[in-house]
């Protein structure tokens, strides 16, 4: 229960940062996507269910505040969380290369999906422009932020795990 509340707060704070503070630290008007980072890293650290849960909530928040089609971001984020959950088995605590790569891949896939459904379908066929101008810079910036923030997420996850262990033990 405590874990749920903390994760909910984390998503909430990330979303608000994404919309308010991050635009002012954007480089070439590109800002990192910390909601994808959160979704992918929870999928990786905690498995499919947790990733799906985080993805669903963060996607829902995005959808609520975007005037475009409702449900689109929820769907993408849920699947990104779920897919990252497949790598739960091969996840090691100390290794930072794999989470960074996975988050980058997730962000890239997210960009391609947005382009495909919201731009390509309206006849914007200039795929390479969008990859060069938006998707790749966003991926790089997100990777950078991941390297800075991942330790914190990992520590949080470990702490929560320990707290849960303790409470389980106290019942026994």
């Amino acid at each position, binding site marked *: 229960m405590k874990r749920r509340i903390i994760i909910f707060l984390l998503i909430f704070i990330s979303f*608000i*940062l994404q*919309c308010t503070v991050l635009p002012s630290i954007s480089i070439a008007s590109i800002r990192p*996507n910390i909601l994808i980072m959160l979704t992918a890293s929870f999928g990786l650290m905690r498995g499919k269910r947790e990733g799906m849960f985080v993805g669903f909530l963060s996607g829902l928040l995005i959808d609520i505040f*975007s005037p*475009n089609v*409702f449900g689109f971001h929820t769907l993408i984020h*849920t699947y990104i969380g779920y897919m990252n959950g497949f790598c739960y088995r091969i996840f090691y605590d100390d290794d930072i290369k794999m989470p960074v790569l996975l988050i980058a891949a997730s962000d890239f896939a997210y960009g391609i999906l*947005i382009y495909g459904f919201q731009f390509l379908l*309206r006849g914007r066929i200039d795929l390479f422009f969008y990859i060069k101008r938006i998707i790749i810079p966003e991926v790089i910036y997100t990777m950078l932020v991941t390297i800075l923030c991942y330790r914190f997420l990992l520590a949080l996850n470990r702490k929560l795990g320990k707290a849960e262990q303790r409470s389980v033990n106290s019942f026994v």
Partner: protein
Amino acid sequence: MKKKLNDSSKSKYLLVAITIFCCVMIVLSLTVDMAAAPLKYVSGYLITPIQRGLNQAGGWLSDKSIYFQNSTDIAARNEVLQEKVDVLTAENNQLLQDKEELDRLRDLLELDSQYDEYEKTGARVIAKDSGNWFNVFTIDKGSLDGIQVDNNVLAGSGLVGIVTSVGPKWATVRAICDDLSNVSAMVSSTMDTCIIAGDLRLIDEGKINLVKLTDEEDKVMVGDKVVTSNVSNRFLPGILIGYISELGMDSNNLTKSGYITPVVDFRHLQEVLVIKELKEVKGAQEALDSEAETEAEMKIETETGSETTESADE
């Protein structure tokens, strides 16, 4: 059958459920206008106050960075600005005189000056869209302050965008440079209509597409002023959008297209003005629809008529 589901298949079912939920919501929001309205209403109460506070933090950050960048050339700029103030003061006096004359002439013509008389309210930009793809932002005023969907939004001297959804204390605005935005506009000198279509690719260059300009007399020139048209059904007429920066003939030899430079700086929007009036075309729209229907009926009639004559010829 009573066997407990294991964790993996449980999450699989959950995934399917969420997928179905999202698909239903997507279809609903494409067909019905306000499918997610209650959700938006509730969460808006929760999130916008925090966004408002944090946005000030963000503003402070960017203010500081600008401060450090520019403190060196502020003195030089101050001098230039002082000169500009003098010039503008002189110009303003001239304009005030002209305005008095204009008012007098307008009275004679019984026209009201349109632009100043719309009831406006100022609002602060408190949040941007979450991704890098769209140019949508949230402002800190909503239906309690009299803002409605389809209200026009201005900043400084020009059109910024249009309100797309409204909560009690917040509203989201789609900027005219957004990829999904289309504004019916006209060239103010010749009254030729065109469409101003936003494009993500042009945002870096500070331009917006101008398409479908009908300029039969070939009088529109680069540098001409583009304003919202009087035939638009959502934008009030005569609001300045920008100036034509490039113009060329389309391959169909009927219409022209090019680029305009908007007068608003979309990157650094802080405060905007919302016009609280809607363009009242509801009745007109119905009239148009019914007209179109009768036209269609007439067409069908004539078509069937011609068919009968053809068959008679055969």
